[in-house]
């Protein structure tokens, strides 16, 4: 077993454990912290997958901005207690069905991914993916999506401001 595989296995275990924690925790703050751990492990995997730029962005966007926002809102609303997770009567059948379908989806996805793509070897000539290369790609091939994204963010800003403004 190569060193990378060992690292991967450790990370994967942490990652799945954190996701399980997210799913089962009764406290929103804990859930958020589990999710952060999950994101951090994924960030490390990005490093292993030759995407250092994305790894850093993952930390600063997901951990540094998105999850802080989640925590902030949870704390602000005092909504961390998730007791009384009782389903409405209409939705009793929901949980087992969701679980079953989820497992089905997992099997499908694993089958498709591994059978279709997983076997192909990794391309030997790895491109550099530093900020320079990402930037060149972003502002050449992906200029339109980039601009559209900026508009999307603007819309999100306006939406958030309008929604939370006191009447």
């Amino acid at each position: 077993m190569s060193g990378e595989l060992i690292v991967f296995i450790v990370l994967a275990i942490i990652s799945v454990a954190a996701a399980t924690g997210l799913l089962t925790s009764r406290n929103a703050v804990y859930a958020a912290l589990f999710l952060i751990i999950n994101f951090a492990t994924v960030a490390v995997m990005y490093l292993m997958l030759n995407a250092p730029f994305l790894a850093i962005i993952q930390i600063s966007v997901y951990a540094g901005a998105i999850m802080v926002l989640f925590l902030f809102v949870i704390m602000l609303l005092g909504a961390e207690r998730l007791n009384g997770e009782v389903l409405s009567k209409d939705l009793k059948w929901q949980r087992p069905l969701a679980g079953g379908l989820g497992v089905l989806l997992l099997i499908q996805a694993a089958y498709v991914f591994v059978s279709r793509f997983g076997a192909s070897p990794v391309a030997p000539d790895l491109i550099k993916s530093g900020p320079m290369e990402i930037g060149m790609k972003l502002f050449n091939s992906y200029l339109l999506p980039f601009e559209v994204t900026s508009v999307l963010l603007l819309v999100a800003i306006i939406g958030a401001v309008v929604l939370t403004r006191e009447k």
Partner: protein
Amino acid sequence: MQLFYISPILFPLLGLLINATLGKRLGERAIGAVASLMVIAAFIVSAMVFSQVGALPEGTSAIPVDLGIPWIQVGTLTVPFGLQLDALSATMMLIVTGVGALIHIYSIGYMHGDPRFQRFFVYLNLFIASMLVLVMSNNFLLMFVGWELVGLCSYLLIGFWFNNIKNAEAGRKAFVVNRIGDVGFILAIMAIFVAFGTLTFTDVFSKVATFGVNAPIIVGITLLLFVGATGKSAQIPLFVWLPDAMAGPTPVSALIHAATMVTAGIYMMTRAHVLFAAAPDTQTVVAVVGALTAFVAGSVALTQNDIKKVLAYSTISQLGFMVAAAGLGAYVASVFHLATHAFFKALLFLAAGSVIHGMEHLSHSKHGAHGDHKEPIDPQDMRNMGGLRTKMPVTFIVFLIGSLALAGIFPLAGFWSKDEIIVAALSKNILVFVLLGITAVFTAFYVGRQLVMVFFGKPRTEDAAHAAESSPLMTIPLIILAVLSAIGGALNLPGVGSLGNWLAPVLGEAEAEAFQIGVAGFFTVLSIAALAGAWALYRNAYAKADDKDPLQKLGPLYTFIKRAWFIDAIYKDVVVKLFYAACSFLARVFDIGGIDGVVNGAGTLVQKASGGLRKAQNGFVRSYGLMMLVGVVVIVAWFVYSAGAR
């Protein structure tokens, strides 16, 4: 270098942009200066293009300009943004930008003080750019773009003083009537694509020969093209918009409705002369329609009292001459007359504008600029004028030169160009010859009538008595145009035929009609006689403004002619009413019954169906999510299955 060739179009567009964006801050002088300078720049470039065309080596007819910009690529159709710079388009460019520049300068004086001064120059610049697109394009579709754009400008400028509902209606009329012609043009373009598989001039013309003479498709195409030309160049039956178009400011009448835009139809037919040459049947139709138009409009011009209406009908009449010439295959004569007509008709319109300006001098000194107030008397009605010869000497002289040129008096420009057309008619089609001959006499008569009514006798109103000469900004362009009208005949003197030689690479070596001294002399004598007759009839006709016209002795015929042969009335009472009836039928039966029924039925169906489906909408976000998951699982399963099957 390619930019150089597009620059005549770009300059006016630049002026348009500057004036449209910064115009509010610039003030009148700067706006006028920017607009005029841009057109002058376009003129200079056009002159350079003209000289380059002249310097082309033997055997090439056009400057090769490949912009390398495909405009439309659909299937086998490729329409480029391409320019055709040959002798014909270079001549047109010179006329458009040259006359255009003069009229821009004139307009600075004429539109002074108008609240929409800025907008006027924006429109004028847009017009120049559009007209250049029309004449410079190398394919029918781009030409059509210019064609529509000049139509738009014409509409905007006719209705420029839209505060008065009549002006707005005149603009709308011009627009609608032109659209009818445009339908012909666009159908022609489609037919050309069907027949030739391309829209580029050179490609189309090179393939014409394979169809043979009077092939139905070619006749159809040329007839449709001619329908387009009748709309834009105001021929029977679509000429009714042009007299109403006089509602626009006078420089507009001069530029668009006399010198340039209305000649677009003639330019188009000349450009497509290869097609027309392959369809002699169409040519006969064209020649007869042109001659008829010339005759009808010339007769109507005899009876008009509005100084601009006279000129408008005269313009239609002269356009008829050009169209007839094109129909006769005398394209050089047609273009020759187009050029000289551009000079003297622009001159006449501008001089008429100067007269109107002078007539408004009294009330302007009291009230302000055009358009924004009711004139106490109609400043355009010739019965209100009289004796302006002494009040406005410069205007009088240039008007006189223009009139005589129009009447075809030797040696002014009109004499040479008109004579060439008449000679061509004599040898080719006697009916056309007779009609054009009578029209020539009419022309001299109404010109004489107009001169007498406006400039001779005594002032018949207060306004005429207090008329004053216009500013140099207006008179200098007039003088330049007067000089051109006087010597314009030199373009294509008989025996020299310089214009013919010049256009030969495009139009082919035309067998020059021999100058027939007999014909020329005959018509000169007739014209002078008609002028003298007008002098005799009208010298003492109008003592007061509301005196009767001497021609009223003709009785019903006078009314018939004065109402423009009742063509407008026929359109209004027959064509429009029929159209309304058809529309109302379609609206009641097809729209409400058929289409609405289908639409409402679909709506009801959806309503019923959604009423049933609504129950699935239980309001729980997660059950929606679950449905999505079911969908995902099923779709992925399908993919896995189908991939496995492959």
